[in-house]
């Protein structure tokens, strides 16, 4: 079971990439935890999570092929 992770704004700098794949992620909390283990600086960055382009609140179960976007505060306009 694979999910695709999309990174935006300052997160692309922090992680040095804008897109990665993670395996065996049961839910969005697992994604956050895995990335935080790997990139401890993430704890200083506020971000929202969108699953398949819908912003979620709290934890959300994931299934194969889903797209999880980590989005820092918007600054368009």
């Amino acid at each position, binding site marked *: 079971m694979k999910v695709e992770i*999309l990174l*935006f*704004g*300052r997160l692309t700098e922090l992680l040095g990439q804008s897109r990665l794949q993670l395996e065996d992620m049961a839910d969005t909390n697992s994604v956050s935890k895995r990335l935080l283990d790997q990139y401890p600086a993430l704890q200083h960055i506020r971000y929202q999570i*969108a699953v398949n*382009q819908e912003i979620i609140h709290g934890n959300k179960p994931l299934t194969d092929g889903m797209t999880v*976007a980590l*989005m*820092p*505060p*918007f*600054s*368009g*306009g």
Partner: protein
Amino acid sequence: MREKKLKNIFVNGAVSAQAIADSIQKHHSKTNIGAHSIFLGQVRADQIGEQQVTGINYTAYEEMALEKMYEIREAIFEKYELTCMHIHHSLGLVAAGEICLFVFTSSGHRKAAMQACDELVERIKAELPIWGKEILTDESHQWKENK
């Protein structure tokens, strides 16, 4: 799932004054319009300590932004009696002094166009997944955040 037509709002680089004029010009044939309201976002050369902002580099989660914009557009057409609505937002580098956002609403009577334009600007800034990286004089940068 009902069919929906996503309209692209993104343009490469700055929105030119000429593009705005062309857009206004096209509405001269719509003689049921009595009022146009336009909002333009322009990149400020803000002072950041010793440095100045020379431009903003915009990136977006494009697919999601267009989906969200579709939703906003539908809600605004539902709420106000508009004849038309046009939105353009820059991607890539926009130099200080140049236009990065163009919101254009039209209606028979002025209130609808004015209120819809205001609400669109607020929603675009709050809800569209777009990020601006401010480029400073010394080529360092900082990430912008909307308040």
